[in-house]
């Protein structure tokens, strides 16, 4: 009895209320997205909203089960749960069913489950378990390797299943690492690389390389105030590039145009390094390193883009960046999604009165593009309310994570925050046209049993751990 009353009084009921509100709002929108005059009974189990009711009921049941479980099992069995999920993921590679070009479903009778969804909380648990011991510090090579493996193994298998969207979710754990001691500049470099990746796709390679060079010189000038040297070097090298061009034209030599900037920039690097050596300016080494790494990265970007990414992801990224328009493909969907959301206006068209979100013109209407229905029927006000609820939930989860005395619970809490944040930001960002179309569900909203159950377990394990924050139960 003691334990139960403790559980009830220690439970974070605010989060549970938020969870229930979001799940019910999600269901209302699935109903609206699938709604038609022919099918309107709430309990029509042939329709998605009918099925989702079943999934929701089971999700609530799962939540209660997690709350009634012993909070210790999650840290004790973290690796076992993780191992089991990895096995499950591997078996999908073998027995899986192909849906939307991804082989990520395990058929279970009449419906299937997606192990990838459950890999998220399993990885969060394993990560928490690995990093929670007091002696663990995120500062040695081996600590990075271990953390990297925990995250990369499930992400890699999911990538093999062709489900790039879900694999990207695992990148969000970088927030957990940051919270647990990863230096800020790693985040900064990651951000820079992403920016570089995108700009390489948008601009041509020469532009990027010259821009990087100019940036480097500018940093140097701002730091040192040595304008003369920097400007004369730049001018000299520009002149060299121009001379090379003239020479090739005059003597009619067929040269790849790349040489006109590669040779001057390369010479610039050599001269700068020599200068650094003789003037003993350490900073220049750093800048040269910066230049070499960024140039190398942008040169390899194109290769990665062409050879590593799927064609349909390439298309979506190109489309978003305005490089290539595929009007009847994904660009079309995003455009339709924007029209649907945009047409909602300030107040929205009213529940079930949406017109854009009927007719199945956006194929993933009740899954990946469920936010369209929110935007169209509930307008800017409704969208803001949904956003606010999500933000509130995330901030509340951060508070919960921070109030833990056990680092296991705190790290797991940040894992939950990272996963949810990534899903929400990417899903809504995609629907409003800020991000490329990456097929991941909106937590608690999107149609589908696996994702709802996985998010439920994810959040409720944290609530269970949180209920123990004042001390551990023996038993």
């Amino acid at each position, binding site marked *: 009895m003691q334990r139960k009353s403790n559980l009830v009084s220690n439970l974070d009921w605010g989060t549970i209320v938020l969870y229930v509100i979001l799940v019910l709002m999600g269901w209302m929108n699935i109903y609206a997205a699938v709604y038609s005059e022919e099918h309107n009974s709430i309990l029509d189990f042939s329709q998605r909203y009918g099925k989702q009711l079943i999934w929701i009921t089971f999700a609530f049941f799962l939540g209660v089960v997690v709350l009634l479980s012993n909070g210790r099992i999650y840290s004790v069995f973290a690796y076992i749960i993780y191992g089991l999920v990895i096995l499950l993921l591997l078996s999908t590679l073998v027995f899986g069913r192909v849906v939307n070009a991804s082989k990520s479903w395990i058929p279970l009778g009449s419906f299937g489950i997606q192990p990838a969804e459950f890999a998220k909380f399993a990885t969060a648990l394993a990560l928490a378990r690995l990093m929670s011991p007091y002696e663990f510090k995120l500062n040695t090579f081996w600590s990075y390797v271990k953390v990297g493996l925990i995250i990369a193994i499930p992400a890699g298998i999911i990538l093999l299943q062709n489900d790039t969207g879900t694999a990207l979710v695992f990148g969000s754990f970088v927030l957990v690492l940051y919270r647990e001691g990863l230096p800020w500049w790693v985040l900064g470099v990651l951000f820079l690389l992403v920016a570089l990746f995108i700009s390489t796709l948008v601009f041509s390679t020469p532009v990027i390389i010259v821009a990087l060079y100019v940036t480097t010189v500018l940093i140097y000038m701002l730091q040192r105030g040595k304008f003369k040297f920097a400007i004369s070097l730049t001018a000299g090298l520009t002149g060299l590039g121009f001379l090379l061009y003239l020479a090739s034209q005059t003597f009619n030599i067929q040269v790849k145009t790349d040489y006109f900037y590669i040779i001057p920039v390369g010479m610039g690097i050599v001269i700068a390094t020599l200068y650094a050596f003789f003037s003993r300016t350490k900073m220049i080494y750093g800048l040269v390193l910066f230049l070499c790494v960024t140039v190398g990265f942008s040169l390899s970007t194109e290769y990665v883009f062409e050879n590593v990414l799927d064609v349909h992801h390439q298309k979506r990224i190109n489309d978003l960046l305005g490089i290539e328009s595929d009007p009847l493909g994904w660009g079309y969907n995003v455009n339709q999604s924007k*029209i649907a959301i945009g047409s909602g206006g300030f107040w929205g068209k009213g529940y079930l009165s949406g*017109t*854009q979100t009927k007719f199945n*013109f956006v194929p993933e209407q009740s899954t990946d593009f469920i936010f369209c229905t929110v935007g169209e029927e509930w307008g800017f006000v409704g969208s803001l309310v949904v956003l606010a609820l999500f933000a509130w939930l995330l901030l509340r989860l951060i508070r919960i994570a921070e109030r833990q005395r056990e680092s296991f619970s705190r790290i797991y809490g940040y894992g939950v925050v990272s996963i949810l944040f990534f899903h929400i930001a990417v899903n809504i960002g995609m629907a409003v046209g800020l991000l490329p179309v990456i097929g991941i569900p909106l937590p608690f909203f999107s149609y589908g049993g696996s994702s709802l159950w996985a998010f439920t377990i994810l959040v409720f394990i944290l609530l269970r751990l949180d209920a123990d924050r004042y001390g551990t139960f023996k038993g």
Partner: protein
Amino acid sequence: MRFNFQADKRFTITGLIIIVFIIIAGKLFYIQVIDRSYQLSASSNVLRYVTKYPARGLIFDRNGNLLVSNKVVYDLMMVKKQVVPFDTMAFASLLNITTDHVRDAFVQASRQKGYSPRKSVVLLKQLPAEACAMLQEKLYLFPGFELLPRTVRLYDREVASHVLGYIGEVDEEIISKNPYYQLGDYIGISGLEKSYEEYLRGKKGVSVYMVDVYNRIKGSYEDGKYDSAAVEGQNLICTLDADLQEYGEKLMQNKIGSIVAIEPRTGEVLAMVSSPTYNPGLLVGRERADNFRTLQNDSLKPIFNRSIMALYPPGSTFKVVNALIGLQEGCVYPQTTYSCHGGYTVGRGVGCHIHPSPLNLTQAIQMSCNTYFCHVFRNILDKPEFGSVEKGFTVWKNHVESFGYGNKLNIDLPNEQKGIVPTVAFYDKYFRKGGWNSLTILSLSIGQGELAATPLQMANLVTIIANRGFYLDPHVVRAVGDSMVRNSNVPEKHYTTIDTQWFDYIVEGMDMAVNGAPGSGSTARIAALPDIRICGKTGTSQNPHGADHSVFFAFAPKDDPKIAISVYVENAGFGATWAAPIASLMIEKYLRDSISRPYLEDYILQANLLDRRAKKK
């Protein structure tokens, strides 16, 4: 104290989340409140895609005669939600159909997969243009209905159905495999329509319109930014000679079998007859399904393209192959003579007909002596240098395969069969290892036994003899597209494993078989023409299921071959009786364009060999 120390990280993460949410909210504010264009483009609600169907490419024969073109028909479309109660009687009479037919169509339409009362669905398919003219004028009286023009095939001459093939509506399976196709689209199902589908179909275009909730068109979506024009299908110039093809089909009426004629120099198929045939127009239009069922249930299998799909024993025509292999391997010489008195008597033996004896190789071909080729075949398989019958057989088999037997010739038509050439493994299994020798499989010497070839492969064999040792990939399409230039896919030249010098003895034998003096034992004198030197070889292939098949293959003229032809008439008895005159008439038709022997033509045209098959069964 550790937690406070980390506090800045907590606030950085909180800040990051808040910034991202503010960016999203800002974008939402922009598209929902500031930018009115989204509201405007959505004010007319839904987009409608109207597919623009391209005309399918035309097909011409080698002389530029149009074989296949298109005609316009209409699909009557309906959006159930917009249909108001209407005068069914008037509606039906405009279309010249019964009111019951209209009601049935309604019931059928609502049962379609993916039916929605808001979407445009097909009510009646492929209405002829004449029937629609009246309705088109009165269509404003019937809201919710629309006539959608489609094109179907029109056959200007009722020939070459098997080569041309037919088109049909795509099914779910095709759609799931190839996203280009949508429900209601047509696709080539057989013949050239299938093998050149990608060229013939062109490219569909689409117009995107904005429509309101009443499905009324409000204008082009984004000024036609997403529209695309339909690209017409490319035309095909095929290698067939429509006149020759038509003549061949006429000669083969009331007979079962096949004629394949090839231009030896190029590998171009001049005629490809499969009999019985059918009128290609039957597989077009609204009666298509019924007609198809009738044709499919016909016991004579008119849809089956015998020329490339039927497997026949090559019969005596195969003796030339054995002769060539024997010459190449030094197992027989042109001067080698064997005597024949009614047959080959070793083992189970092989009978022969009455002819002068002894004879040399050329005479053996001229008179089609079974005994001679039993000797040749055994000489090859039992040649001491090979060491074993298995080795000898393998050498023989490799030669046979170099003639295109036992493998597809890769003609540009679907469903070609590869024929049968037995292997050592097959005989090891059929008898037992070491349990067979050249005597056990002696029937191969006269083209019987475990051998089977398509009529195309037999025509290809004559092509090889006419060319004295090589053939080009046989093909039925000469050019794709309007440029009228040759298809860039140049046919490949294949040499057999036999040296050119040996072919002259075969040609000589085939010449004598047709043009030998009376009483000299020539087997195909019926095929001779006074001014064209035809070289030919008869065959009578034993048929375990009924009367023997009548086979003949020939090429002409002897010194500058323009046509190589194989004729196969099922259950018709001796090659000389039916197949030889048909081949002769075809050659004359192609080279002279007139027939000098009307009596022979009448004899063939009047023959009805269909019931023979029933009799012997």
